């Protein structure tokens, strides 16, 4: 608990105000590095505890945000440690900028549940709450671990794995030579390694640039399109993304897998997921698709339920409506271009979610849908996972660490240090990148040495 931690304390949505919380021994140092009062004279480190201060957050000479800073010194704080809360402007982008600045200036991103854990360990939370604390930690960690890997784009994952593989090869080479100098020589390896490290550094820098643009992680409101076969789900998807990605036919049950697309609607990012139509079926392939659709719907942030207005409701619709009872959902009354078999009122009677008439074929109703989603988002009814940003920050920190370790390797090479010094920092770089993948050095090195290099008596 010697580290100073920080995280976004409010929900990650387009709310008016966001709060960044910092806790730990160096909390006051961190804030004094980035806070400036309006006149620039106030020394934030010297203000009395439990006071609020107006000013700006700076990253070097750049103003990041206009804020209120709350100073709370130990022990009368939530965690029992020195705590600073920064009230900044709400919105994903603004909050992230402030958090990143805090992290750059001496704080580490908090582990899931860490504020609560510290509060407990410092005796600020009652003993009877220990179990609840444990539950929070495990649940949050499980989620973070799952999402951490899931959210990484495939190409990013591949790049990180590739860099790690190269790094461990070099470590293994150096180490096997040190271990068995009479079999393997590592003399003059600095030159070879220098080139490799240069390349790896560039790769990591590219990844970091991507992460700043938010491209490293898949993000957006997870929006699942649901409906019975041939209700027009794929046509809706095509209309939303504006190209013929999903195969559209009039044969019921054409979409048998899950299709994913990213779009921006009224400035809000949506991760659109098209699914197979839900109905009871004998076709095994289709059954799998239907099963997947149900699974996907379970952890959706928002569901777009497409109803074919030209057909009467049947047992498949009843089935779906039941599933949607406690979900965030918009019902799309589709095929307004055809003669209606059921009315909008009939649907409103059977389901409590908003209903919007559209025609996917004629591309009408889009504006209504956009507005509805925007309303739901800003009212906080739907939001996306804040863990996305946490993991992004975590990944970034790990990449930065790896980069500085590689810089130390370069330093050692330039200074003409003996080869054994190189591998020390290479190992640190390998470990840092491993944090992103949830892997550590462990036996990796020994395995690499024995599988790649022939040593021994």
């Amino acid at each position, binding site marked *: 608990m010697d580290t100073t931690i920080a995280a976004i304390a409010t929900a990650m949505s387009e709310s008016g105000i966001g709060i960044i919380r910092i806790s730990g021994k160096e909390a006051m140092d961190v804030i004094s590095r980035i806070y400036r009062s309006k006149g620039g004279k106030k020394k934030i480190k010297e203000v009395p505890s439990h006071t609020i201060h107006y000013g700006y957050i700076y990253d070097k000479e750049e103003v990041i945000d206009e804020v209120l800073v709350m100073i709370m010194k130990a022990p009368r704080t939530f965690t029992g440690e020195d705590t600073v809360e920064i009230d900044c402007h709400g919105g994903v982008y603004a909050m992230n900028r402030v958090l990143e600045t805090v992290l750059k200036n001496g704080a580490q991103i908090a*582990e899931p549940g860490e504020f609560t854990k510290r509060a407990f*360990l410092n005796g600020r939370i009652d003993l009877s709450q*220990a179990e609840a604390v444990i539950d929070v930690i495990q649940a949050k960690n499980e989620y973070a671990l799952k999402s951490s890997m899931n959210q990484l784009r495939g190409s990013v994952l591949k790049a990180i794995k590739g860099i790690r593989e190269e790094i461990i090869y070099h470590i293994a080479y150096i180490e096997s030579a*040190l271990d068995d*100098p009479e079999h393997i020589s590592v003399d003059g390896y600095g030159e070879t390694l220098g080139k490799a490290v240069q390349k790896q550094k560039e790769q990591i820098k590219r990844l970091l640039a991507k992460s700043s643009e938010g491209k490293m992680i898949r993000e957006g409101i997870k929006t699942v399109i649901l409906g019975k076969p041939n209700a027009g789900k794929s046509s809706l998807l095509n209309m939303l993304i504006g190209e013929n990605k999903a195969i559209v036919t009039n044969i019921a049950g054409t979409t048998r897998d899950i299709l994913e697309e990213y779009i921006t609607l009224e400035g809000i990012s949506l991760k659109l997921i098209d699914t197979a139509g839900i109905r009871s079926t004998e076709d095994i392939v289709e059954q799998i698709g239907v099963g997947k659709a149900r699974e996907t719907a379970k952890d959706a942030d928002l569901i777009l339920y497409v109803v074919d207005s030209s057909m009467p409701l049947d047992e498949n619709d009843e089935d779906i409506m039941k599933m949607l009872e406690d979900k965030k959902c918009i019902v799309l009354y589709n095929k307004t271009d055809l003669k209606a078999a059921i009315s909008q009122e009939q649907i409103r009677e059977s389901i409590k979610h908003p209903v919007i008439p559209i025609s996917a074929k004629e591309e009408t109703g889009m504006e209504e849908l956009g507005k509805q989603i925007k309303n739901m988002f800003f009212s906080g009814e739907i939001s996306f996972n804040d863990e996305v940003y946490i993991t992004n920050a975590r990944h970034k920190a790990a990449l930065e660490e790896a980069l500085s370790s590689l810089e130390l390797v370069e330093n050692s090479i330039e200074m003409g240090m003996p*080869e054994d010094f190189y591998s*020390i920092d290479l190992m640190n770089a390998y470990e840092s990148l491993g944090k992103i993948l949830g892997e550590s050095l462990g036996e990796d090195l*020994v395995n690499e040495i*024995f599988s790649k290099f022939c040593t021994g008596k």
Partner: protein
Amino acid sequence: MNQLIKNCDIVVIGAGHAGCEAALAGARLGLDTIMFTVSVDSIALMPCNPNIGGSSKGHLVKEVDALGGEMGKNIDKTFIQSKMLNQSKGPAVHSLRAQADKQAYSTEMRKTLENTPNLTIKQGEITELLVEDGKITGVKTFSNAVYYCKAVILCTGTYLKARCIYGDVSNYTGPNGLQAANYLTDSLKSLGIEMFRFKTGTPARIDGKTIDYSKMEEQFGDKRIVPFSFSTDPETIQIDQVSCWLTYTNEKTHEIIRNNLDRSPLYSGMIEGTGPRYCPSIEDKVVRFADKNRHQVFIEPEGLYTNEMYVGGMSSSLPEDVQDQMYHSVPGLENATIVRNAYAIEYDCINPRQLNPTLEFKNINGLFSAGQFNGSSGYEEAAAQGLVAGINAALKIQGKEMMTLDRSEAYIGVLIDDLVTKENHEPYRMMTSRAEYRLLLRQDNADIRLRKKGYEAGLIDQETYEKVLRKTEAIEKEIKRVEHVHIGANEKVQKLLESYGSTPLKNGTTLAELIRRPELNYKALEPIDEERPKLAWDVEEQVNINIKYDGYIKRQLKQVEQFKKLESRKIPEDLDYKQIKGLRIEAMQKLELYQPVSIGQASRISGVSPADISVLLIYMEQYTKEEKH
């Protein structure tokens, strides 16, 4: 039934490198110690390579010496060639290796044992451990004699149910055809101890007078010999050294091997034990590294008393006739006579996770174990564990706190922690890459690191301990001085720098800054350091290393600080992991199995996540708070 019944404090089973250190430590700490061996003639036997030390193993020997063990002193008395490996590399990986006169090594060690008060050597096979209420009470021999005691140290090496194999022939013997110990395993199993079966191997020995050395490269020892023991005066060991020889296998050798692979017990499935990957047989190398068209072969003398030469790099379990062809295909060995065939050996050992870091069994009070029996390999690894087990058996009987070394204190700490914490599927060998703080754990500062521990345990006397205290003080004083010595950009200085190819000074600087330049060192700068005091060579060495690598050393010290915090969070022994709601099942099972002594150790168990550690910390907090209520 009439039987011999005796009493003593400590029984050591086995007289190899672990057994010797264990018995000596026990006896030197004043405990009545009996060491059992199946053959008194095999005390401190070196059944495989004829050398002590080598990369990271040299560190272990130095540490054993610093703690008050015997291996370093014994090899200083009996070496016939010595080499400091990796001299062109950083000080952390310098490692001493000495060729031993095997027989002299064995004889000298036996002499030391025989002349140590409180120590009795007994020939006999132990067949049973006597345990009452989870506490060791004694041992029983093959002849039914009973020795009651307070602690037992198992150092059975490769002898338990040992089987030697070459080709399709196998023999139930220990190494070198010595008698195996066939009964003890069953007794251990009946006590609930989980056993593994491991395998290792050794190359052939060849008659030196049948070797054509003109076809080989001669390998000399170092000009200036550095001793292993901190107590040995370097001047007393500058001996005439013997040479080793280097030759290579070739395509013909590999072809012979490939043609006979079906007769190798490794590939035919006749060997069930798990062998070490770092010490592959020549057939393994040929198969796994098929693109290499030659492998090095080191011809090393077994001693001054004999013509026998060890063929390093060509251990094998192929049949005798194939071995004959194979060795003869190597340049210089065309007409060589094989004295002893290469063989593989299989033996029983334990899953070492059943041990505490003190090397005492978690579930049997007073039972300790060390060496190959714990799943390690190597003479040095064995000696290191033997010493720790011996010290702890004695301390326990004396009612004192037992000694443990952690990963930041010694290679021995890394070795033992790896054995008792990590899953181990092959004989474990020390490697410098396993030591995360290796810049701090150098062979040159083992005395500074560990004399105190040895002194506290009682193996290091007052005078020796004070000597290291004075040394430490002298080093610190000189470092301080050097950091503050100002060096001006005068002519004398520039000339000296120039002579070392070092950039001339623009402005004045400190002596320390100059020492940090790669091409310079403490000694080289003597001419421009006018007030330099006269210091011992080993003090100068420490000053140089500490200043030169200051930045790296400080970084590792910082990491150690973090590490120590987790190590010092002890887990109560009676903690019931099943009661901890919120631990994942895998973590709960692993923690139950390993019963880690600290949060640090728990965090190194595979399958225990950082979140599990958080949960554990919170539970412990709750637990101690409730205790207080």
